[in-house]
């Protein structure tokens, strides 16, 4: 389709260069920040070597937002911040002020007009940590493979833990995240607490769809457990229900392999992952609750489990201790007790594919010169 392109036509021009979007004070002090202090929940004072000071003011958002909300945020940024604002890596929005006296007004305006709460920061020097936003994914709002919703569960959990977002009263950093299926777009595999949507029944093969849309050998090969057999005669595939671990790989590859069962889909709950190298090297999250059913719209079962795990840590951890540090100190045995969780065979690893080098490769950046 090599039609004539209009003069403004271009591709591969890339994102706008970041420096277009930096306020003057940042350009001036770029790379020359001296230190920071969290002066109240949500507000970080940053001092540059030059003596310049900025205040970043952080607000929680539901991530899924309206263009009209973005315009409201822009209005506020125009009013207080010379027309600049930023988002954080965890779905929060930040305003950068130079005038300390405007902080209260800004917060008031955002909270009242937009309804986003100020908070989500943590103050490591003083050992007072706030809870930040939940990284999450599309869920029933957009994706085709979810076993659970995303935004609705996040809302239910954050409503419950709200006080920890707007205040800094936790012993350490706690990252919560959610992914609606085992693809784990929320990267819940390394979070202090996380949820992942899981199916519990093998695909109910839709022979017709398989025939129309799928390459049989590719579909069979997509199964990590070799649970899929091509039935060449019937031009479809068959699933060995005893081998299937409901991972959904086959459905990703072939629309004829749906594995949705409203009664049996649900969430697994994990904990004890982390990413930073602070004190303890990065860790994968571990499954501590094999399954909780879907209970829209407020998911009371999930919220209760999350709260139990969260409070077991919040009430008993030492200053600066993240979930895994806490658990390693007291032992998984004690943790299951404290959090009121039940241990079952599901929690013992039996996935056939082993992260083998993993057992000995060094992760993270802790090493000596």
């Amino acid at each position, binding site marked *: 389709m090599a039609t004539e392109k209009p003069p403004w036509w*271009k591709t*591969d021009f*890339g*994102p*706008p260069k*970041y420096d*277009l979007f*930096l306020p003057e004070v940042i350009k001036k002090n*770029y*790379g020359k920040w001296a*230190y920071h202090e969290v002066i109240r929940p949500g507000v970080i004072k*940053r001092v540059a070597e030059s003596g310049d000071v900025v205040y970043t003011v952080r607000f929680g958002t539901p*991530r*899924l*937002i*309206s*263009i*009209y*909300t*973005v*315009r409201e945020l822009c209005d506020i*940024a*125009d009013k207080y911040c010379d*027309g600049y*604002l930023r*988002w*954080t*890596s965890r779905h929060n929005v930040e305003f*950068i002020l130079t005038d300390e006296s405007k902080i209260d007004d800004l917060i008031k305006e955002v909270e009242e007009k937009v309804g986003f709460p100020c908070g989500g920061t943590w103050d490591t*020097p003083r050992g007072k940590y706030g809870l930040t936003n939940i990284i*999450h994914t599309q*869920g*029933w709002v*957009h994706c085709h493979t979810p076993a659970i*919703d995303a935004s*609705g569960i996040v809302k239910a959990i*954050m*409503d419950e833990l709200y006080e920890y*977002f707007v205040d800094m009263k936790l012993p350490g950093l706690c990252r919560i995240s959610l992914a609606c299926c085992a693809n784990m777009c929320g*990267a819940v595999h390394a979070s202090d607490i996380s949820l992942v949507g899981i199916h519990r029944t093998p695909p109910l093969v839709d022979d017709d769809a398989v025939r129309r849309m799928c390459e049989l050998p590719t579909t069979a090969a997509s199964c990590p457990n070799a649970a899929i057999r091509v039935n060449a005669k019937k031009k479809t595939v068959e699933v060995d229900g005893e081998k299937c671990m409901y991972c959904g*790989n086959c459905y*990703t590859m072939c*629309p004829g392999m749906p594995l949705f069962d409203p009664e049996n*889909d649900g969430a697994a709950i994990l904990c004890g992952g982390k990413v*930073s*190298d*602070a004190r303890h090297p990065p860790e*994968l999250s571990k499954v501590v609750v094999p399954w909780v059913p*879907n209970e*829209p719209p*407020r998911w009371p079962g999930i919220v209760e489990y999350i709260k139990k795990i969260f409070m077991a840590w919040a009430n008993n951890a030492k200053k600066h201790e993240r979930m895994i540090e806490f658990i390693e100190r007291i032992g998984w045995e004690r943790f299951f007790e404290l959090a009121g969780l039940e241990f079952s065979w599901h929690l013992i690893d039996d996935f056939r594919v082993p992260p083998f080098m*993993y057992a*000995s*490769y*060094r*992760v*993270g950046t*802790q*090493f*000596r010169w």
Partner: protein
Amino acid sequence: MSETPLLDQIPDGPWPSFVKEIRKTAELQEKAIKEGKEIKMPGCARAVLKQLERSYEDKKTHWKHGGIVSVVGYGGGVIGRYSDLGDELPEVHHFHTIRVNMPAGWFYSTKALRQLMDVWEKWGSGLLNMHGSTGDIILLGTRSEYLQPAFEDMMKMDPPFDIGGSGSDLRTPSCCMGPALCEFACFDTLDLCYDLTMEYQNELHRPMWPYKFKFKISGCPNDCVAAKARSDFAIIGTWKGDIQIDQEAVKEYAEWMDIEEEVVKLCPTGAISYDAEKKEIKIDNSNCVRCMHCINKMPKALKPGKERGATICIGAKAPCVEGAIIGWVAVPFIPADELKDRVKEIVEPLWDWWDDEGKFRERIGEFLWRMGMGKFLRVIGQEPDVRMIKHPRTNPFMYFEEKELRPSKVVEELKKRGIKFKSLEREEEEE
């Protein structure tokens, strides 16, 4: 009665509600239409709510399996999506997303953002994610025929916004705010992120590999973009040499901080000692693993060492297919000023090799497991280093290359018989 009794319960509670955002969009779009604005997807936001209500009733998704849609000249960046309630809710029959490549560090001018919102008010649902999990701006929901004009309007913006990655390509690189706001940054994360994004526009926009590939860039080991867990190729700021200490600032902290309990005792290697008399700390830097804890605790007093650079961790990914991986150390140190060049020198032969020999849907991490670190290091021209491992191997099943063997009758005879020995070299491509 409400059409969405279940969703109606969601705005309850103090946390901002996505349902409220969707409703607001529906209402304001309707208002805009009345005001005469050109809006191509009227009623879409409201239909989203209805479909979602159905999902809440049925406890399952009502979105159908994928579908390939794109814009001219691009192979990725758009996720096709159709509703299985399309007959009932034609407004969401098509509901594709556009991934828009965000600016490095997620800094915006309101001017640029407003333009983008205008595009999406016109051509889309009026809903978006700020941001997607990879970091893109996710414009949620439009019809196939509006993809192209929406993108063309983005081209025309000042500055224009380009499309992000999807499919088996390079995914939109992301980075922490680094030097823009943070005193810990060991190199210019934004600059490197922008540089790599621009250099690899073709790889980003045209899926052609065995599977996806992600760069994420953090300015220090705190890793505020979770690169170590979420990117095939994580670039993590670090340093060599002594942590810089300002003993005067230590004294200030000492006024109210229990340095012994909260700093000294929490250093993972016991590298710090504190003289409570003099109120001074001492660091045995040869024993420091650069975990950042002491620096995080006393940002005014401590700074990373002066020789700045980055560690490359390779292979991170989610659990499908072979299990989740946190990236492992592949290159212990690259000086800050060599990063742009060295990263490219490393990643290009790696892609080339993976592209040739990787299996379909095999991520780099899994590919390297299969091929072995020995070969990988040879391919990228990196010497093996004890810093790459938690501990040496526990089995004696090592390979040896022919050149490591001593001349012997057995070796002669094996060669005579045409037996090939293990080799770490990549086979030359057949022309």
